[in-house]
């Protein structure tokens, strides 16, 4: 693998990690909001 390709691998890994972190955070917020809404329905 050439140095350019290695840079490209790093760049993609980095951007994928950032996207995954954002999605995980959004998931946590969503599950929290769903929990609150469900407690409102049945609580």
């Amino acid at each position, binding site marked *: 693998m050439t140095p350019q*390709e290695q840079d*490209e*691998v790093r760049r*993609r890994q980095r*951007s*994928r990690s950032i996207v995954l972190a954002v999605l995980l955070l959004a998931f946590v917020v969503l599950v929290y909001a769903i929990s*609150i*809404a*469900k407690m409102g*329905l049945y609580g």
Partner: protein
Amino acid sequence: MSIATQSLPAAMPADWRDFLALTKPRVMTLVVFTGLCGLLVAPVHLPPVLAFAAILCIALGAGAAAALNMWYEADIDAKMKRTAGRPLPAGRMDRASALHFGVGLSFFSVLLMGVATNWVAAGILAVSILFYVFVYTIWLKRRTPQNIVIGGAAGAFPPVIGWAAATGDVTLLPILLFALIFLWTPPHFWALSLFVRTDYANAGVPMLPVVAGAKATRLQILLYTLPMAAAAVAPWALHLTGAIYGIAATGLSAVFLLLALRVFANPATEPKEMGPEKKLFAFSILYLFAIFGALVADRWLAA
């Protein structure tokens, strides 16, 4: 010919945008819209957060099904101009990644739907994904020229899922909405396949114009338009909706039928002369948006 000729080195991870492309975001707009309409016309109103979660799950489920479709069809996609640039045929992603992404997203969307709303909606969502992947993509698409009819059934699930997410059951109105999209899909897609026919012929997919000819396809378009119009007007005729929907559905279906008749009367074989087909295709998209929009407007103005 290998489809991985332009493949990147094995260790190169796919760009995250290519995972997004696997979910066919543009097709998703119609899925989200009809799912939302099914949810909004239901007699039970969900809290906004749960309604949002339900629509998100429908979108993710559709994206998962699309990814699995692309995983299975990379060989066909490579042979068609319209699809050759997709992540798998272009060699920007390995097949295993697409499979894992599709299966993972399927489970995620179904489980989240069950937790956020109810397991009836989650079950129908699971059935719709399995139907699209196994019955349509793997089993029937390459075997029958009525493949689009089967695919249409998969695309008709969202309003039923949206309704079930709100009420936990399925009644006559969501079933009629299912029938409407189911019967709408063949004329919609066959109109397109008439003027992009050469592509399907190259890929060996038994698309109706390829195996039966343009004339038979135009007749089929007309034949499906009649029950489609009936399914569109039925909710009003059965007093499940008010006059706003009734007038809109009748008017829109009349225009659809008129355009289908003009397609039927068109003898052209060259895409250049297929003005009526292109018009019908363009109108068919507007038709579905307008008719579902009218359904929601009818329900809200009546309340």
